[in-house]
């Protein structure tokens, strides 16, 4: 059977991560087994706790919502060629802005007021990550480092403001800001525990996927990220495109923080700093910086998170077991990328083309030899060539 490079690519993009995930589950089983527990029980509980019934589904989806948004904070800038790892900073500032707006004026306690809060959250996040893009384009400051530094700065600012100027005097044990009015909070969708934040996550992922793959602006963004020199040659405004991509990503992460405050915590406190931004980095990389793929990946990892407490209760393992599983899964999925373009290439292409060279000695050899080569390499790096090499030095500007 002959497969086209496109379908090989499709098979590999689905098959490899799934195989890696299976490997991670296997590894996790072995790990649990070393601790004297039954791996089969662990797998069963993992499934039950994540997707076993409606209750688990609700829990999983609730955890997936912020992951989708923080993953977009990595994926969108990545498409413009930037590895931003400071989504955590945008998230906490978004949460702070959401909780802080009522300090400035009293927003109407209805959906419009909530929209204002979320807008403030998105704006705060957008400004923070846009700064990363500006610093890179204006001063050449590496975006990975600056976003990390800005994330730590943002967290310090967040803690300072929550425990200082904006602290609710009534919050004694756990310093928090004033609790949002009932009407401003985000409730559950259709009488479930899953809050409307999930819808924001879904819509953002789908819409940004459409923007990226079907609009001129998205196309331009991908050119800037794929080949900076080509972008310059055709005269694309790289700086503007990069800053806009950063702002979009930051807005998503800020929105995640705002939603966490308005739907889960009801005020800004230290629980918001829970590593959601870092988890989002991994979701984005596993989804290969594709906004559409972010959705299932986020749901899957939200599910793992949801299963943690069930595993802890029923199997008597520490709740960190989920972290171990996620660590295995991410590491293997990232490593499995190395196999891309290699699973089918030797059997599908080089074997049939080999006799062709032998049979026709009179034919000019160079004509038949190159046929086998380009088909092999053309399909490898989908989407983000600049990121794929990792350490390949980006061309000096």
């Amino acid at each position, binding site marked *: 059977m002959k497969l086209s490079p496109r379908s090989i690519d499709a098979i590999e993009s689905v098959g490899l991560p799934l195989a890696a995930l299976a490997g991670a589950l296997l590894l996790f089983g072995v790990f649990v087994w070393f601790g004297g527990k039954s791996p089969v029980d662990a797998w069963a509980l993992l499934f039950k706790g994540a997707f076993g019934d409606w209750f688990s589904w609700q829990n999983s989806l609730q955890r997936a919502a912020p992951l989708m948004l923080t993953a977009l904070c990595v994926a969108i800038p990545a498409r413009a060629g930037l*590895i931003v*790892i400071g989504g955590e900073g945008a998230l906490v500032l978004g949460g702070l802005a959401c909780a802080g707006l009522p300090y400035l004026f009293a927003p109407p306690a209805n959906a419009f007021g909530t929209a204002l809060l979320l807008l403030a959250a998105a704006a705060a996040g957008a400004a923070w990550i846009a700064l990363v893009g500006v*610093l890179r*384009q*204006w*001063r*050449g*400051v*590496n975006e*990975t*480092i*600056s976003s*990390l*530094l*800005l994330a*730590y*700065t943002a967290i*310090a*600012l967040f*803690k*300072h403001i929550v*425990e*200082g100027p904006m602290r609710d005097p009534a919050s004694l044990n756990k310093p928090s800001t004033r609790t949002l009015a009932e009407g401003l909070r985000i409730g559950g969708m259709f009488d479930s525990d899953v809050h409307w934040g999930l819808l924001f996550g879904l819509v953002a992922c789908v819409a940004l996927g459409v923007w990226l793959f079907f609009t001129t602006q998205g196309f331009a963004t991908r050119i800037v990220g794929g080949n900076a020199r080509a972008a310059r040659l055709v005269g694309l405004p790289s700086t503007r495109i990069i800053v806009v991509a950063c702002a979009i990503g930051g807005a998503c992460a800020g929105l995640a923080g705002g939603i966490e405050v308005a739907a889960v915590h009801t005020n800004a406190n230290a629980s918001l700093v829970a590593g959601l931004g*870092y*988890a989002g*980095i*991994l979701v984005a*990389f596993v989804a290969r910086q594709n906004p559409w793929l972010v959705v299932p990946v986020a749901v899957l990892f939200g599910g793992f998170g949801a299963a943690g407490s069930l595993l802890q209760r029923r199997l008597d*393992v*520490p*709740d*960190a*077991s*989920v*972290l*171990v*599983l*996620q*660590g*295995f899964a*991410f*590491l293997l999925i*990232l*490593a499995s*990328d*190395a196999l*891309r373009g290699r699973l089918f290439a030797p059997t599908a292409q080089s074997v049939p083309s080999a006799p062709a060279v032998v049979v026709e000695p009179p034919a000019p050899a160079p004509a038949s030899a190159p046929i086998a080569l380009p088909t092999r390499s053309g399909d*490898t*790096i989908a989407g983000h060539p600049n*990121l*794929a*090499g*990792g*350490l*390949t*030095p*980006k061309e*000096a*500007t």
Partner: protein
Amino acid sequence: MSADPTTSALALNVLIAVLGGAIRVGTPFLMVSLGECITEKAGRINLGLEGVLVFSAMAGFGGAYLSGSPWVGVLAAGLSGALLALLHGIVCSLPRVNDIATGIALMLLGTGLAFYLGKPLIQPQAPQIPAIALGEWSNSAQVRAALQINALFPIGVLIALVCAWAFRSTRFGLVLRMAGDSSDAARALGYSVNGIRIAATTLGGFIAGLGGASLSLHYPGSWNEGLSSGQGLIAVALVIFARWSPLRCLGAALLFGGAGALGPALQSVGISQGYYLFNAVPYVLTLLILVWTCSPRRSLKGAPLELGVSR
């Protein structure tokens, strides 16, 4: 004039506390930044040192608790750190694997393993690394308390000196720097770039592991899940701050440690404002230095050329 002596005494107390704290808080910073420095000199970034730090802190505590000797714990911490870093080195050597994403995954795995395996270690007390008392000359109990130096700190200083010497004048150091500055040159001379980088990452993990031991066996001196406050991640910033020089890493670690100690020191004399802001000073400072020294037209001075973040 009556207020003066008290103010100056307060200022002196704060100063002593900050100096002592700079070493106490700065030792883990020193170790992770040296580990990161070696890794980056070979051309790779290991963001997973956060995971290494937490995991090795747990392993070091466990080793000391089970064996009864803190130095066995230190060794266990170093080796477990090296093991985790080795994993990073190997995975990053695969084609098309991004070292930053792998680092974050390793951070997750390391903390996960540490929390999982370290659950039974939260209650017990392990033997601590002995402190070197440098404050015996003083009558003031406060000075003596502040100058209880972590025995790992001089070891860290020694490692920094050895690193600086090795980078400059040993074959291993030169080959390592070559892998970081021009992988083509290293390959042309017949060295395995991936091999060098794996070795450098592993060695860096060992040294960072000593930082983990400092956390769990000296200060704060116990094992719990909130032990590290991101020192491993911020090591990357520290190394940039130190512009990839092991000796400057020492200064940067003390500065970062001092900034971390400033908040508690001021709190002890009654100034509780801005506790978190003092902690953030080094990050803002690093960012300002980056903004000041970077330019779109050239890479950072002293940066390994192959490093993804230097450009």
